[in-house]
């Protein structure tokens, strides 16, 4: 009987959830205050972030100890798979909101603003040309060239997907060296991507006059690429954790869901970038 019962895993009471809630409460109220010019806001936000980091270390640390301690059965493993898949789906829907906004602006709102009544009565010199920053934006700006840095970034991310899969092969074959080298290359490529992105943002602001305030083009450009960059940062952080765990000898060829979860996440980030490259930079 106990063999069937131990399929389940019900953890002991834990204080990490309430620490997490405290962190989120501090971060949210700190952000509200910071955005409204209350001096304490910034410190509350940073304090909340520190509590969040403490919680993540503690909570994930517990999970890693439980996993390495052999407490997770096949059933738990399967639970993790379901949950990670649906978490990634929720992220897909988050980006879908911004892509939806982009399509609406390009297909409906900008052409409408340049249509008959509006041109006649409100904005006589406005025409429907993308990239557009709207009828009230009088300065000159240029969009980023797709086949410059963004193309290099595409190459970097696609290569990182390949190195990650190569690392996974190493893990499955129990070739620890291949695993670590593959992960190291993936992290390096991810960081290189982020550096290129930072250079690109700098160029956008200094040379292209392309800012977050540059009408709808600036809004959609920075919102989409910014949230993507944020997700790359998260993914790279997770990869670094996995890299260290691999160095410490964690994971077995048949028991390494944490690795796979991070890999799924990394490929998701990769696919979002491909859409960005085509829909934001290229077309």
């Amino acid at each position, binding site marked *: 009987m106990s063999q069937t019962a131990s399929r389940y*895993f*019900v953890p002991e*009471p834990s204080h990490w959830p309430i620490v997490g809630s405290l962190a989120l409460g501090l971060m949210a109220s700190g952000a509200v205050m910071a955005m*409204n010019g209350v001096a304490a806001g910034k410190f509350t936000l940073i304090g909340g972030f520190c509590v969040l980091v403490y919680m993540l270390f503690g909570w994930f640390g517990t999970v890693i100890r439980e996993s390495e301690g052999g407490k997770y059965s096949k059933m738990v493993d399967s639970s993790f798979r379901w949950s990670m898949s649906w978490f990634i789906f929720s992220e897909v829907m988050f980006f879908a909101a911004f892509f*939806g906004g982009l399509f609406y602006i390009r297909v409906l709102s900008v052409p409408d603003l340049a249509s008959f009544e509006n041109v006649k009565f409100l904005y006589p010199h406005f025409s429907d040309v993308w990239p557009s920053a709207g009828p009230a934006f009088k300065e000159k700006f240029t969009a980023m060239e797709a086949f410059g840095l963004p193309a290099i970034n595409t190459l970097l991310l696609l290569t990182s997907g390949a190195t990650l899969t190569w690392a996974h092969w190493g893990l499955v074959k129990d070739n620890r060296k291949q695993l670590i080298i593959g992960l190291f290359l993936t992290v390096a490529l991810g960081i290189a991507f982020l550096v290129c992105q930072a250079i690109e943002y700098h160029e956008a602001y200094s040379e292209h006059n392309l800012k977050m305030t540059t009408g709808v083009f600036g*809004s959609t450009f920075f919102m989409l690429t910014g949230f993507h960059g944020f997700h790359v940062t998260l993914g790279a952080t997770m990869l670094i954790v996995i890299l260290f765990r691999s160095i410490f000898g964690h994971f077995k060829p048949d028991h390494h869901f944490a690795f796979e979860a991070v890999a799924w996440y990394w490929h998701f980030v990769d696919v979002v970038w491909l859409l960005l490259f085509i829909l934001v930079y290229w077309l």
Partner: protein
Amino acid sequence: MAAVDHAHGHEHGHDGHGHHPTGLMRWVTTTNHKDIGSMYLWFSFAMFMVGGAMSLVIRAELFQPGLQVVSPAFYNQMITLHALIMVFGAIMPAFVGFANWMIPLQIGAPDMAFARMNNWSFWILPVAGSMLVGSMFVPGGASGTGWTLYPPLSIQMGMGMDMAIFGVHLLGMSSIMGSINIITTILNLRAPGMTLMKMPMFCWTWLITAYLLIAVMPVLAGAVTMLLTDRHFGTTFFDAAGGGDPVLFQHIFWFFGHPEVYIIALPAFGVISEVIPAFSRKPIFGYTSMVYAIASIAIISFFVWAHHMYTTGIPLTGQLYFMYATMLIAVPTGVKVFNWVATMWRGELTFETPMLFALGFLFLFTLGGFSGLVLSVTAVDIMLQDTYYVVAHFHYVMVAGAVFSAYAGAYYWLPKWTGHMYDETLGKAHFWLTLFFFNLTFFVQHFLGLAGMPRRIPDYALQFAEFNKLSSIGAFGLGLSQLLFLYVVIKCIKGGKKAEANVWGAPGLEWTVPSPAPYHTFEEPPVVK
């Protein structure tokens, strides 16, 4: 300590070592689905009282024409917070509470799949709730935009609006984690032999609701994030001068908002699909068609959002499409209503309180469905947009639909939770008072709306005075009647007739465990034949 496992059972005794904190810390650190379910239900009831008090401020102001009680700005804040708190703070957590308590019991699992994350999903709620309630006390007060947070007004609001935005972010995180947990529990932790098509209907409704939540809560997060950057970082998503469009917000918001209606309604359907068969002493009529009906409602709900936007200048072809698509939802909903009625046909009906609330639901929710069908007709909706007819419609769906079914579920499962029978006389009194005052409050609003009274405005023309007076009397009666429920619940927790394991003679695994359900159940999975 790891698994709930008899081989390790001795470790349960180590209370002194801090494994099982007592007092307040028991609730703060708990990983038990029953504790967490109870916390959700109490939180929900507390928010129900807060949101209810706000609605009474609204009804007090509308008791007679002219401005008497509150300022128009505060009235707007009450309108906004009442809706946000009732939707996100009261109704949704109530059904998540039911899910936490009942899904593991109904599928024969020892707990939810991710017990710690389950606790976090709950403990985010008080933080988000205090953001919403607290926004009343900051300079400029709470958001006064209505719960839909439409720009350009929401761009102009003070910091209370930012608190609403972050509150919504937190609520969304809680919902997504809760939903992932529910999906994983249902798909992965069912007892051997319990195939999906043998699952209780309540689990089915929650499985599909959880998918809806994961699909739309992130979209809402995206929408309010764009509001936030438009407010503080100079983007122009919703500003025509920068090439954006305020209507874009409405599209994104209602892409979330319409499935949200079914996020609230589907678990309510689930509870009703448990209660009606139990008190008809018959299995539910048309189980398979019920499952397909829920799934169809969920899928169609993604393609009807612009019926909330008929008057925003969308093209005629768009209006026609959204009108027909909306009407299509009435078909699977009709299947469900038909099946509930057919379940009762030739059943051995008895009318205890849960059944009374279920029947109240059946009549009044159907009425709310019909007024929804009226509003789906574009030509009619253009007349009725933003009138009290709409207010009456969605309160028939939200209160008589969701709240009645939450009461049906609460009375149905209270003996299982507390081990005592509730006071049947008081329960029935609660039902009849609620039914009477609910209709007094909201039925008259149909007439007000048809006569042209606009909503969200603190004053009105003299011709609307009579019905508004009736509606306000009803609202105060409705509010007071809910205190009776609180009394019944406390009385039931404290004592009462001992409840048997299978109180109602209903099928289902939850009735095979003793009442009250022990702290740990199904540590070894039952086998379902």
